[in-house]
């Protein structure tokens, strides 16, 4: 964002807002931008990937000579659409070392896409790839995936050891055990300086973010005021017009969600980064033993639940795979019938 552009703004509150934004961005990104060809191209493709479909941006020249307004608009879109700042904050957090990622989401392939594999591409002989190479590649990928899986299992095993051996040592009675970072600090105390630096930097980022949050409405107001420069932007309209209405709606939805959670079995799809926490077997506990997966202050999910969900998902995918294989087999049989002296032996 060019400083030249910002000087057009009036009002001290807005300049305060923007300086808060700039210092936030500086703290978060800490990079100096030199407009290069590649840079512009990767920004465009990243925006395209996330679904930004404003053609004016993609028509911008690749040397960075023009388009600061379009960039500002795109940036605002990212802020709104991707919760960009929250994501960056989450990514820059000091790691406990106990993180793992969970995903129990269903595939969101729309039905229209499912037919695409049926269309045979028009390949000339020169473009043909030997199927044996593909088989080889498939085998290699499978082997690499298995190695990754084994390494991941090892990580979990060792993490379990750490949690088990440090049980009862933590100041936090509920948590009970050390995290990897904390254990490492005990083993190598001289590293405390580095950890302290990281924590301080994280605090700085959080403070800057809070400052930004206070002034955020001013930013959106200013963007809407300058809307005529940008042409129609639905997300800007909604932002100010429904801003407060949305807030009310959100809190109502949250209340409803709480109610449904209490009344009905949970159907939330877990997704994202979580911290693994060890819970030993309690005879009185209903959820049973084993590791829990807790996501910050939100509800904790037990590992056994996640495993069960994933197993159900696996079973349904296997059924689907079996069905697809049957269809392929039938197709091959049909083709083989049409050829003289050829029989199809399926693997």
């Amino acid at each position, binding site marked *: 964002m060019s400083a030249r552009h910002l000087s057009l703004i009036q009002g001290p509150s807005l300049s305060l807002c923007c300086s808060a934004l700039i210092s936030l961005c500086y703290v978060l990104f800490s990079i100096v931008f030199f407009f290069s060809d590649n840079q512009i191209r990767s920004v465009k493709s990243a925006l395209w990937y996330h679904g930004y479909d404003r053609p004016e941006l993609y028509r911008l020249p690749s040397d960075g000579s023009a388009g600061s307004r379009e960039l500002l608009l795109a940036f605002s879109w990212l802020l709104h659409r991707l919760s960009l700042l929250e994501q960056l904050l989450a990514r820059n957090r000091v790691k406990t070392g106990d993180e793992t990622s969970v995903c129990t989401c269903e595939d969101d392939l729309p039905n229209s896409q499912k037919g695409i594999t049926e269309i045979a591409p028009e390949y000339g002989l020169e473009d043909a790839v*030997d199927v*044996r*190479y593909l088989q*080889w590649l498939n085998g290699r990928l499978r082997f690499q995936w*298995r190695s990754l899986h*084994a390494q991941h*299992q090892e990580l979990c095993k*060792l993490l379990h050891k750490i949690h088990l051996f440090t049980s009862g040592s933590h100041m936090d009675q509920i948590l009970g055990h050390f995290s990897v970072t904390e254990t490492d600090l005990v083993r190598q105390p001289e590293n405390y300086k580095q950890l302290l630096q990281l924590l301080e930097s994280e605090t700085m980022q959080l403070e800057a973010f809070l400052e930004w949050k206070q002034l955020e409405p001013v930013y959106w107001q200013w963007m809407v005021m300058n809307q005529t420069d940008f042409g129609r932007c639905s997300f800007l309209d909604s932002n100010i017009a429904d801003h407060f209405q949305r807030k009310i709606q959100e809190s109502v939805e949250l209340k409803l969600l709480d109610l449904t959670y209490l009344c009905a079995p949970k159907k939330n799809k877990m997704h994202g980064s979580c911290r693994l926490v060890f819970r030993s077997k309690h005879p009185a506990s209903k959820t049973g033993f084993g590791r829990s997966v807790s996501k910050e202050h939100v509800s904790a999910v037990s590992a056994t639940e996640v495993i069960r969900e994933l197993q159900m998902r696996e079973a349904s995918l296997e059924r689907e795979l079996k069905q697809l294989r049957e269809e392929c087999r039938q197709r091959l049989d049909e083709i083989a019938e049409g050829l003289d002296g050829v029989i199809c*032996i399926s693997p």
Partner: protein
Amino acid sequence: MSIVTVQLGQCGNQIGHEVFNAICSDIHGTHGLCSKKENESYRDACKERFFCEEESEVPIARAVLVDMEPKVISQTLSMAARSGYWKYDDRSRFCQKQGSGNNWANGYSVHGPRHKEVIMNLVQKEAEKCDRLGGFFTIMSMAGGTGSGLGAFVTQCLRDAFPTSFILNHVIWPYSTGEVIVQNYNSVLTLSHLYQSSDALLVHENDVIHKICAQLMNIKQMSFRDVNQVIAHQLGSVFQPTYTAEGGLHYSRNPLGSFRDPSLYTSWLNPRDAFNAWKTPRAFNKYEKSAALVSNSQFLLKPLDNVVGKAWNMFASKAYIHQYTKFGIEEEDFLDSFTALEQVISSYTIL
């Protein structure tokens, strides 16, 4: 990263013992031209890979010993313990009172299912001792009775119980003028079944090893021990830790660079993908410089074709089939096996 070895039958147990011996003596042997630190990390990696170091005095091999009769296993266990450098876990063994009379079907359809739970429990115990399970290494003969039938069954069980693990089967290819009359049947059945569950089959041909012993090493009175030691030495040199492959730059300084001749490779895979070199500065088993080549090539095409051909001829006259059908291996199973191996032969022929 650790490997669990499953020693099957007389052949598997004897060779397995020699393999652990070779590896152990390598660990304690001279480290050649590499530094002390280098040597230590080599030793640590190797120990973790093949041995489990508990509070006991010597490292314990990560192995499960399986045989139908107790004699070979007891011998193996005691020889290892006597070495003083390593030993097996006494509890990690399974054997019965009587053999299976070189009957593949007996091993596969009767003994296998009957003792599946006990054997898999032993394997599970070994697997759990590993922080990171790299996979399974089974050693067996292809043409014998217990080793082959039971081995094929156990490999299947391993695959079912550990779907994401790497399974490497080491098979001993029988002498072409072997004594067991049904060895070709056994070979065909073993190979076709292993092909389904295993990730890779590593083959040692008895004929070839015999030649090595006789001609290269000049051993006059050859015993099985000599044969097994050659095999173990080759396996050891392949399994010992090495540096992970570096970039293409390393190849140009590599004396093995001549392996990049494109005529050595198939048309659909370039040499860069097909050829991998792993190196270590640490000497192996008293050899300061040694190299081992493992290849997936047409080398086995002729022997395989031979075995399948002979088996088919016997099958055409239904000779000895009753020995198999009486334990549940029907003619249809034979046909399936032949089909599977013909496919393998044809894929390798048009390589």
